[in-house]
């Protein structure tokens, strides 16, 4: 229900990290592989690609946060949905 909605917002080919944040941070869960089938026109990357540990050019361009909010200043909130939130990497990055 959720991912097909954000699929229409995120540009095709963009890198996207999909996960349920824990304490606002990226978290490695099974959503990553599931998203490869539900967002087939985007490049799904692991949750760690939305963390500060990753160099800026390699960071996920978009984050789909399931259920809970993401607490990462590098990303700005784009939209809220009943099932989660969509974030975009800040332009200044």
């Amino acid at each position, binding site marked *: 229900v959720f991912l097909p909605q954000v699929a229409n917002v995120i540009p095709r080919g963009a890198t996207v990290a999909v996960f349920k944040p824990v304490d606002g941070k990226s978290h490695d869960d*099974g959503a990553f*592989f*599931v998203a*490869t*089938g539900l967002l*087939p026109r985007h490049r799904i*990357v*692991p949750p760690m690609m939305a963390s500060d540990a990753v160099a800026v050019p390699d960071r996920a361009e978009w984050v789909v946060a399931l259920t809970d909010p993401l607490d990462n200043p590098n990303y700005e909130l784009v939209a809220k949905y009943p099932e989660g939130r969509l974030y975009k990497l800040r332009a200044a990055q």
Partner: protein
Amino acid sequence: MTGFLAAIVALTLCGLLLSAIPYVRSLDVAARLAVAFAGGMLLASALMFALAALHGSWSRALLCGSLVPLAVVGIILFVRGRPALPVACRLWPVAFFLPIIITAIGVFTGRETCSDLIHFWGPKGIHFWIARTIDTDFLGYTFYFLMHPDYPPMLPLVYAWGATMAHHFSWWGAIALTPILLLATAAAFRGIAARAIGGPAANRQALLLASVLALAFEIGPVAGVGEPPIVLFVTIAVAALTFAPDDRGAMLLASLMLAAAAFTKVEGAAFAVVILAVFLVTRRRIAAPLLMAIVPAILLGGWFFFAKKHGLLDAYAAREHIHLRVLPEVFKGMLREASYGTYYLPWLALIAVMAFGAHNWRRAALPLLVTAGTTAAIVFFYLHSTDPSFWIASSATRVLLVPLASFAVATAAMSE
């Protein structure tokens, strides 16, 4: 869901081409249709793979233009062929459909869906469909290594076929294939066994096979992943070589099913090696197993070189050593999972029938040895992990379906 599912089931029409094999023509109508379904999936996926390997992309027109002529020839062959055996007992379909219906209920309530469908098999099928070819960029993407980029592509290709024809991929359609494949497995087995042990006995054994597999499918769970199709291919191959070991048509059919099994799952290749070795030992014939190995070797070899060319080699190039120290852990884990949470009910049901029936050890030698050999192959695979406990817990109930299906054939071969 309907269009996606109908497109895949319609592959039966081009699979009717297998009616050109006299042995297949001698089976009853239900068995011929079931064999045709298996053959149709093999033909379509082989064609799609060949086009991908030749840098061609798929389209509805190209795929239909290639397969419809085969279907026309197949239908002609099917209509002309007269079944050698009538349905012997009118009541058999009533009982026969019970395990299929139970499986369908399990599938459509989501209980039998395997997570690997949404993690691996489904995404591969979707990406192949969108790319209109085998999407090597997707398979080779660094972060997707857990999908095993060189894993045999038959099921994703079948999904891509369904999506190409229906213009959409259906998750429900993918899992809805499970009861259809179970029905095909039981019908094919019944027809093949009936030639040797008679209709009523084949009905009983087919019901037993369907019941045992239905239970194991439920516990697996296996909906949407590679096990239901590989069980169909394995059952046809083992049954054909058990009940008609001297028939050249049965050998050709078995060879095609071995190719399909090897093109579906990694353990399909191990199964092919085991059954050909067992055939060599039990029949003491060298040429026949070598000839039967040709089709699987061409198809799997083609896939291997395709994967190598695109830098996708993973499982087939694994260099992990065997860790014999984990052998006790592997045995314990496999024993635990083989119980299917029902105190070994599937196995005990087969053993009980075996114990109270005739004891035709000679006829049952091939499927019994295949059961032992494929089980040993599974142990061999697990020994390549330093800590196989999670691997066993997450896969053993599914990979043990190949030995279980083979054991069910052995029960029929021995008891009747």
